[in-house]
């Protein structure tokens, strides 16, 4: 049966050799997810901040929808984007299916609700504390949003990291809209799925360990940020 220790050793060998195939796959994963996170952050901050500050009809419903979308299964997000980008779909003319851009779009849909919902929560908590003072200062709603976003920066960074963690680890969305095409849309997670199905446990393990290392790095960054924040009472 499967010899785990042998597989681990082979995996470590591949990582240490800086196998170009490995580097290409890891590089694409990071490119796709980091881009998606950047876009989702801009949208999420704006949306979350606005939801916390502005009053408008349907505000509560929108907040509830965002909270629900936090749990959107990645494969559903992928299916949804696929239906739009397919040549049989409304946006087929853009020829985006099976490209990294399609994967970015799917991941943006996946993580924007997370960032927006956490941003809204952070801003609302801060607003509890600042509301009267900001009103006394006569700040406009837009100015209040930017004030809250900057003041909440440590909590917001953890929201962004949460979004990143979710995106880098998902396989459903990028598989469906990317097609797992070699050298084009093959990411760490889709490669792990493929190599496992081919029985190439060593390569799959190597990728898995890198993915775990990234997840670990995120968690350590989170801990570090929390520590800095409380030291300066910025939390």
């Amino acid at each position, binding site marked *: *049966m*499967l010899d785990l220790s042998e597989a681990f050793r082979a995996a470590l060998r591949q990582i240490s050799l800086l196998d170009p195939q490995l580097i290409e796959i890891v590089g*694409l994963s990071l*490119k*796709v997810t*980091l*881009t998606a996170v*950047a*876009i989702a952050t*801009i949208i999420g901050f704006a949306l979350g901040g606005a939801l916390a500050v502005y009053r408008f009809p349907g505000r509560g419903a929108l907040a509830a929808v965002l909270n629900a979308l936090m749990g959107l299964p990645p494969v559903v997000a992928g299916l949804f984007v696929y239906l739009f980008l*397919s*040549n*049989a*779909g409304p946006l*087929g*003319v853009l*020829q*985006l*299916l*099976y*490209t*990294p*851009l399609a994967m970015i779009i799917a991941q943006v849909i996946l993580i924007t609700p997370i960032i927006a919902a956490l941003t809204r929560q952070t801003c609302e908590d801060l607003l509890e504390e600042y509301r009267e003072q900001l009103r006394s200062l006569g700040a406009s709603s837009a100015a209040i949003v930017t004030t809250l976003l*900057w003041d909440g920066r440590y909590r917001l960074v953890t929201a962004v990291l949460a979004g990143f963690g979710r995106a880098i680890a998902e396989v459903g969305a990028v598989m469906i809209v990317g*097609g*797992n*095409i*070699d050298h*084009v849309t093959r990411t760490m997670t889709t490669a792990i799925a*493929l190599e*496992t*199905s*081919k*029985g*190439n*446990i060593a390569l799959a393990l190597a990728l898995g360990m890198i993915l775990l290392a990234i997840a670990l790095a995120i968690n350590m960054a989170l801990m570090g940020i929390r520590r800095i924040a409380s030291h300066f009472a910025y939390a």
Partner: protein
Amino acid sequence: MSAEFGRRNFLKFALAALSLVGLSPTVPRADDNFIIVQSTTSTQNSGLFDHLLPLFTDKTGIEVRVVAVGTGQALKNAENGDGDVVLVHSQPDEEKFVADGWGVKRYPVMYNDFIIVGPGADPAKIAGLNQAPEALKKIAEAKAPFASRADDSGTHKAELKLWEQAGIDPKASSGSWYLETGSGMGATLNTAVGKQAYALTDRGTWLAFANKGDFKVLVEGDDKLFNQYGVILVNPTKHPNVKAKEGQAFIDWLVSPEGQAAIASYTIDGQQLFFPNARPQS
């Protein structure tokens, strides 16, 4: 203070980062010379494409991007226009695809065969049988575990045909000894090996499969296990986005003596996986 600096320049940094990503080659440009081929997981898992496609690209400069799913899904994707060429192994479905107008013409390309693999212990005692339906009957009678792809693929349809010829309805026992994985060939083989179950697989995937455990090839050679591959150009009149010229170039190469030789030259451990059988083109 650094906080002020960060805030003032954050937008500049963000835009700079985004533009860097935009400049990188992840964003597709209109002049990229590639076609999309919808094919099957078994073909991909066999490693044939890693061997074959670079040869075609070197000759023509056309990149081939393979999306590997089950036969049913490959044909459906092509119907949606999400591919330029289909390369699958389910003749009746391929012929229907062309008849319905979704494909231009079906070319036979190559064949391999299916085999039944199973645990070294072989509880149903099917080793050496040369009639596949008979082997399946013995498996059913012994209620020995059997892993089926159950994903509408060419392999799956071939498997169902064999059960039919054995006069058995395995779905009635789905969940007990008949395991419907709904997955590709490799994933199904992983399940089979993990559960010490029999499975029907194409020889190509099996030879390339790296997780065999103690499994052996138990039944082979029955001409009911013959597995024919066909390649079809997606109809450009139905989907104008199809790259008809490049797609046809790929098909022409596959059925040409050069392409056929390339297919035949793909081996694993000295064993040939696919046997070219395109009809000579006049």
